[in-house]
């Protein structure tokens, strides 16, 4: 009973209040320690030499001259990183991504690394390393990579998921199919069928804090890593495995994180920094430059997508089809068996109740950096395609786009396009909220247009382990193993306070290092508040059991006669009327003599994180002479299940929308014909600046997740899914051009306008 995850409606005291964030003062005063703020005595500076070529055989690396440079303590190439992955191809790919093995696979691929006494020396050493390359043909575009005459990047990759197995290797490494019903029959029943192809360019998460770490490996085989990461336990096991260390002997401490959005779920420099430290026998610190971050860490896929939707005159969708081609950089997607296009395919039509639906995900390797998760990974691109097509269908039918969506919205009992049958979900409610929102009735001026779009994200639970310790003064420490990427310390403290019946300020949450807790999965899939929150509920309930036991000892009465209520142990029944309730602090004060410290603990794999839906409304103004687009007004409506800390939930909703706006309008990786990235910096990779964005309005809906005690759903990711399409639809309504390529940058819009006027 104690560990029952199901939702129970109850009156809440502190959950849902907007308490002050515990990390705020440190962050605004500059006291917070980020990845690059850690230093170890005697540390060396680590720097990487990276390939300037998109694809090249590495014929020779001469490090002799660099090694002789005074102050250089270690140089590493792939020869110093033997392959210990024993047939685990995913691990081998990580190893190869960290350091090129015989071939450079993208512009920016690390080929060597140096540890030296200072940065100047390390820089000099990099210049003294001589690499002899033999250029190989490269391909960076996803459609080009699928052509029969494209250079084949790996001779060992054969397409998975097709029968019979291909006889030749290719860049297409996986095909995945999802859906149900009969789409051919469905399209035959349709009065209107709209088909359209789309492209989305590659974007980066754009976290302001670059990857940074200090690694220290001792001769006895133990080591430490201080690092900015979304998953220190995962970093620990990946690094230990690649370096042949015992997992438990590597201690990883996470710093404050200056943004990750999925980019810090993967290791990049960390295993190499540890290897440098091992070789030099000194701690080594490395901080990626912005250019390195762009060239060699974390972008999302660029894509090419076809969508086809058929509907009856009354708006009923009879069939929906999508083919998704996503590139994942030079290696198959990070999650074995669930590559990027497959994830995109699963999300494609998740907002709708469809009798006939089919999606195909084609996953492709190209000579670009390894793709990493980016906030609702793979979903925004397909949502751009599907939600744009939805508006086109509505136009053909002469129905309001919002009404078309309401008519076809998924609901409880709908079979999702990716298989499962939904429980209670929020898509219908968010659409209804759109309908009622004053934003929908606001006046528009010339060259302005309004668009809307929906989005979905799965959310994730995962392995979780947490501690709750009560000090003798009654203050409470939480130790959790998920990273605070968006306010989870405040939310978890609220949950503990609610369970224990004490004020929020009596609770302090910490992120434990890997030495202090069991394994916690990476903080991804919007799981932090859901999973660690659940673990804290159970840990608190366990602590309450202990508190009751101790009260029983103090009162010398049976534990069955004691209940926990409003932060106090209370003896039940009139015979105990003389016993004054004992507060948590009263019991804690006596704990040294009643059995020692009082704690609760939980390890679990919370399941059913509760899918999340959002609908966005956006107004734009387009300058028809320059193609420049301004966002005039923006509203996010999202189901949070339960907003534990509403301000943080709104922050997530706004943050995702802001990133989506950047993706929609200006952000893109630009490659030259030589396969080199031309804009690895914030000057020419244009994330929105403050003045580009209006204040983003939010409306939180709360449709409880039945599988969480407080009804929590993940809230961090869904908000980045609708913006691309909402903006595309708004542009179409403003100036009449249907944009099918992101970013919808001024040159692309102006060109589309010219074509429209020419025709």
């Amino acid at each position, binding site marked *: 009973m104690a560990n029952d995850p199901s939702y129970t409606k109850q009156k809440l005291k502190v959950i849902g209040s907007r308490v002050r964030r515990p990390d705020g003062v440190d962050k605004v005063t500059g006291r917070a320690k980020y990845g690059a703020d850690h230093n170890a005595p005697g540390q060396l500076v680590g720097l990487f030499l990276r390939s300037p070529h998109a694809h090249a055989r590495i014929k020779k690396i001469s490090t002799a001259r660099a090694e002789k440079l005074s102050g250089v303590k270690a140089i590493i190439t792939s020869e110093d990183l033997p392959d210990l992955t024993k047939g685990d191809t995913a691990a081998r790919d990580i190893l190869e991504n960290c350091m090129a093995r015989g071939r450079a696979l993208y512009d920016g691929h690390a080929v060597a690394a140096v540890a030296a006494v200072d940065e100047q020396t390390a*820089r000099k050493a990099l210049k003294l390393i001589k690499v002899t390359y033999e250029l190989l043909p490269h391909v960076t575009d996803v459609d080009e990579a699928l052509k029969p005459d494209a250079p084949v990047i790996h001779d060992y990759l054969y397409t998975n998921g097709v029968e019979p197995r291909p006889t030749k290797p290719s860049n297409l490494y996986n095909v995945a199919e999802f859906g149900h019903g009969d789409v051919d029959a469905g399209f035959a029943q349709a009065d209107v069928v709209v088909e359209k192809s789309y492209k989305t360019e590659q974007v980066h998460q754009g976290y302001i804090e670059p990857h940074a770490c200090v690694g220290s490996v001792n001769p006895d085989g133990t080591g430490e890593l201080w690092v900015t990461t979304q998953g220190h336990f995962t970093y620990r096991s990946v690094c230990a495995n690649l370096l042949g260390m015992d997992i438990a002997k590597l201690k990883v401490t996470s710093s404050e994180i200056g943004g990750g959005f999925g980019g810090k779920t993967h290791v990049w420099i960390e295993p190499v920094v540890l290897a440098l430290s091992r070789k030099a026998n000194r701690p080594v610190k490395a901080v990626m430059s912005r*250019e390195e971050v762009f060239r060699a860490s974390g972008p999302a896929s660029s894509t090419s997508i076809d969508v086809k939707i058929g509907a009856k005159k009354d708006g009923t969708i009879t069939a929906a089809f999508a083919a998704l081609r996503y590139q994942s950089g030079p290696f198959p997607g990070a999650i074995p068996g669930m590559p990027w296009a497959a994830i995109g395919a699963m999300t494609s039509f998740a907002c709708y109740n469809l009798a006939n639906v089919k999606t195909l995900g084609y996953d492709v390797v190209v000579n670009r950096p390894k793709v990493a998760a980016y906030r609702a990974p793979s979903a925004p691109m397909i949502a751009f395609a599907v939600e744009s097509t939805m508006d086109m269908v509505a136009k053909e039918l002469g129905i309001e786009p919002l009404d078309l969506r309401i008519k076809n919205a998924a609901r409880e009992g709908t079979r999702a396009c990716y298989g499962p049958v939904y429980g209670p979900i929020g898509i219908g409610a968010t659409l209804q909220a759109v309908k009622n929102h004053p934003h929908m009735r606001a006046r528009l001026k010339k060259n302005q247009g309004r668009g809307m779009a929906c989005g979905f994200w799965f959310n994730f639970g995962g392995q979780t382990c947490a501690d709750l310790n009560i000090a003798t003064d009654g203050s409470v420490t939480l130790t959790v193993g998920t990273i605070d990427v968006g306010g989870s310390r405040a939310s978890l403290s609220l949950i503990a306070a609610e369970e224990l019946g004490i004020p929020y300020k009596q609770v302090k949450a910490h992120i434990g290092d890997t030495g202090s807790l069991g394994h916690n999965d990476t903080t991804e899939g919007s799981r932090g508040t859901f999973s660690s929150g659940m673990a804290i509920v159970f840990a608190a309930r366990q602590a309450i059991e202990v508190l009751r036991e101790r009260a029983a000892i103090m009162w010398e009465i049976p534990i069955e006669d004691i209940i926990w209520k409003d932060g106090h142990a209370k003896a039940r029944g009139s015979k105990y009327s003389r016993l004054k309730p004992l507060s948590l602090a009263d019991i804690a004060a006596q704990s040294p003599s009643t059995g020692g410290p009082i704690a609760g603990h939980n390890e679990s794999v919370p399941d059913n994180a509760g899918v999340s839906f959002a609908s966005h409304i956006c107004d734009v103004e387009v300058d028809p*002479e*320059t*193609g*420049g687009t*301004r966002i005039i007004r923006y509203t996010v409506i999202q189901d949070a299940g339960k907003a534990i800390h509403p301000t943080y939930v709104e922050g997530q909703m706004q943050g995702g929308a802001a990133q989506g706006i950047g993706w929609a*309008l*200006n952000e893109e990786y*630009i490659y030259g014909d030589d396969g080199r990235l*031309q*804009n690895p910096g914030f*000057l*020419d990779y*244009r994330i*929105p*600046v403050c*003045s*580009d964005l209006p204040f983003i309005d939010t409306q939180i809906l709360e449709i409880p997740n039945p599988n969480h005690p407080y009804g929590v759903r993940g809230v961090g990711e869904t908000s980045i899914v609708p913006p691309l399409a909402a903006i595309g639809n708004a542009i179409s309504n403003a100036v009449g051009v249907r944009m099918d390529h992101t970013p919808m*940058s*001024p*040159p692309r819009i*102006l*060109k589309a306008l010219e074509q429209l006027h020419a025709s």
Partner: protein
Amino acid sequence: MLESEAGAAFVLAGGTDLLVRMKLGHIEPALLVDIKRIPAMNSITHSARGTRIGAAVSGAELGEHKAVARAWPGVVEATNLIGSDQVQSRCTMVGNLCNASPAADSVPAMIAAGAKAVVVSRTGRRTVPVEKIVTGPGQTSLARGEVIEAIVLPARPARSGDAYLRFIPRTEMDIAVVSAGVSLTLERGRIKTARVVLGAVAPTAVLVPAAARAIIGSKLDEDALHKLAAACSAACKPIDDKRGTIEYRTKVAGVLGKRAAQIAFQRAGGA
């Protein structure tokens, strides 16, 4: 000092280009000479005979000089577009000019205004039209040991106006994809003299006499504007790059030329 240094030697004004390039490892200077403390380079003098802006005057200082802002709103707004508040407190027009980027914001406005640079060296002083300073991306006509001491703007006749516009995909902290500076003087409601300059459409900022001719004598009617836009587009020799296509730059150069002329016309009191 600058003349005798054997290695790479640079003048340091605000450093908002120089220090960035050093950090990125693009340049490794052996000598930097900071000019910010030289009094002659630190002041603005403004009179009926003209305006002299010292080479070390920051964008923010220029922006606060009300009389200059009234006489040359286009030059001042162009300079104030550079970067953000932080950058404004350091950056200079002369640094913007000598960095020799085709997209430098203050340069088209200065050329449109007929600005001249006062160039000093150990051996003397010469005055050079601003358009003669930059010879190509990253290149200037300054000889070794030559330093720009100040920018001089001519006396401003009545009924004059100037304006500068740039197109950037964002709202700030961005680099011009195309830009246009226009300065003009009216006589009896008609344009008597004009200078039209485009930025980011060629290796250097380009003065477009044909665009000026298109509007001189007019009241900036539709037809004149149309001809101005066409002349601007025709003068473009842009490149296709990560910041914009040839096609795009050519088209938008005309649009901005037109819009800048309209603002300058209004500022000059034109109806």
